[in-house]
């Protein structure tokens, strides 16, 4: 049996080296389907780590294993030096969790809900202050079902923070939020990092991953298929720009691939996504190609490559199902 002091000192030692979460070879299968297949990554203290991927990629299951909600079939997750399989309670005391859809007791008011969750930890923050921290102090006597989507997410965040956790898990924190609520939540998350909290979040929103995350793991089919900073991931495309346009049926993919500076082409019917290492010459080449062949060119967009392009390149599928 390890004493609390020992646990605390291990935690500090780990914090000094900067490694807060260390995940090795997590596996989880349900009824012959492997949902999470050997996932490994590590997260430093005060880092925002994003897990990006489409629905069903295994993001939530991965998080739930690290949070101690589900038992992995194989692999380990160490948080602040504590093994979640062997020291589950100790881990759960230092983590804050926001589930994808946090349903709470409909009978309790917000304040009662926070007081209840606060009582589950040896050390907790003042529930009233938590409410005002997420701008819900006026709703203290309301019930969770009376809240808007954004307010409900902020309540879930307040609950996740009530034990002043070292590691915060946010599962799709801004899914289905309006842009204003989304911005508000991003601000809160960025402030939490300044306070030294380590944050692991999942999302299928590229902007969110790009704006918030220090590093991003792209997950698909239960595996991490790429892990880097946003800039690093985009750099892998070897392209400086993306030209997105529609060319009618007379255009051919092979023609376009041979144009100046083109590093890659993706085609879906008449839509072409052209990656290039030299934007201006390629753009001119595309325009003159259309001109020579008498092909109407429409919906032209030139942009910096995004994580969406990275995902498309890695999986051949678009991240946002359209």
């Amino acid at each position: 049996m390890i004493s609390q002091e020992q646990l605390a000192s291990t935690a500090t030692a780990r914090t000094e080296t900067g490694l807060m979460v260390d995940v090795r070879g997590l596996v989880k299968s349900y009824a012959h389907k492997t949902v999470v297949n050997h996932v490994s990554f590590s997260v430093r203290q005060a880092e925002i780590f994003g897990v990006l991927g489409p629905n069903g990629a295994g993001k939530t299951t991965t998080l739930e294993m690290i949070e101690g909600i589900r038992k992995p079939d194989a692999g380990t997750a160490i948080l602040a030096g504590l093994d979640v399989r062997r020291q589950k309670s100790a881990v759960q005391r230092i983590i804050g969790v926001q589930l994808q859809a946090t349903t709470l007791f409909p009978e309790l008011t917000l304040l009662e809900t926070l007081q209840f969750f606060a009582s589950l930890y040896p050390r907790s923050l003042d529930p009233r202050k938590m409410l005002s921290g997420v701008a819900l102090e006026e709703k203290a006597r309301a019930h969770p079902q009376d809240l808007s989507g954004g307010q409900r997410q902020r309540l879930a965040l307040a609950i996740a923070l009530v034990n002043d956790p070292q590691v915060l898990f946010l599962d799709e924190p801004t899914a289905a939020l309006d842009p204003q609520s989304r911005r508000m939540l991003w601000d809160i998350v960025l402030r939490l990092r300044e306070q030294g909290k380590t944050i692991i979040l999942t999302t299928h929103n590229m902007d969110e991953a790009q704006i918030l995350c220090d590093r991003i793991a792209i997950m698909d089919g239960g595996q991490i298929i790429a892990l880097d900073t946003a800039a690093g991931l985009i750099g892998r495309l070897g392209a400086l720009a993306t030209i997105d346009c529609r060319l009618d049926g007379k255009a051919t993919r092979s023609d376009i691939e041979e144009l100046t500076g083109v590093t890659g082409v993706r085609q879906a019917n008449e839509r072409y996504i052209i990656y290039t290492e030299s934007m201006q010459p390629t753009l001119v080449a595309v325009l003159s190609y259309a001109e020579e062949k008498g092909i109407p060119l429409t919906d032209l967009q030139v942009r910096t490559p995004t994580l969406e392009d990275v995902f498309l390149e890695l999986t051949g599928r678009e991240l946002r199902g359209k």
Partner: protein
Amino acid sequence: MLTKIITLLRTNFIILTRQRGLLISSLGYAVISMLVFGFLFGGNSSTQTRLGVVDQDHTFVSAQITSQLQKSDALQVYTGSSDEEQQALKDGQRGAVIIIPVGFGQQLVGGGAHLQVFYDQSNPVTAASTQLTVKAIVDGINRAVTHQPGPVTLDQQAVAAKDMREIDFITPGMLGMLLMWANLAVGIQLVNWREMGITKRLAATPLKPLSMISAQVVARLELSLVQAVILLALATWIFNVHIYGNIGLLALVVTLGALTMLAIGFAIGSFVKKTEAANSILQLVGFPMLFLGGSYLDVNGAPGFLQPLIHIMPLYYLNEALRQVMFSGAGWSAIQTGVLVMMAWIVASMLVVWRAFRWL
């Protein structure tokens, strides 16, 4: 640590008291049923008290008392021997019997005369009105004869000739029903928490499922006791239902009944996935039990082919035990079988829970 346990218990209790549906289906139905049955069938006490008078003195004074009593509009007076009238009292034919003993007339003049009065206390309403009527008449006699109150005292004795009124039958039945609905519903609660993802959120905290479940059990027991007290207080206040048995033993039966229903509720909640399904199963289990368990009707006279079914119903034993304790004033020995059967149900249900329970 203690404040944490209190918060856990308080939270669970608040959750229950804010479930309008739960309160209506348990206490609400029970009170309404009790009122309906009480008022429909409760008016079986005639306005005239049937009073038996036994004149053993055979003096002028005793004859005068008898004729005074006969003149009263509130009384229907029967005269007869002591044995005859006592028997009539035990058969429920008399509200009270007054015995005017030998030497009453002489004692009255000298002071310190005694009248013996036997009341049927199975019906507290008639008992109370009879007592008042008799006292008023005796006071009148006192003043007429001696011009001062007090020389005649009444020796009052209760007689255990209880006539079970409809309300006396229905009240324990409604208490049983209340305990059943209020506590079987724990199954729905569990399934609902699981379906909504509340148990998953709790699984991310250091709170152990067993702690939450224990707190929920304690909260349900508290609620059951509070609801039982409210129901019985109403029954006593409105219908003069009398609890003859030991209150402690009654509380014990209530607790055991609640625990039995909780265990069955948890067993149902263990293997059902959807709240809606849990609700249907609850109705499917609850309603037949309500009638076969004898909450509304006396099932001891039910057809023979139903008897085996009736005799496995935990509610039947709960109702029987409640009636034994409340109405017959029975002690431990009379309810032993019922207690054992309920405990068997708890054990069987816990086996199901042990095999099939899922928190997530």
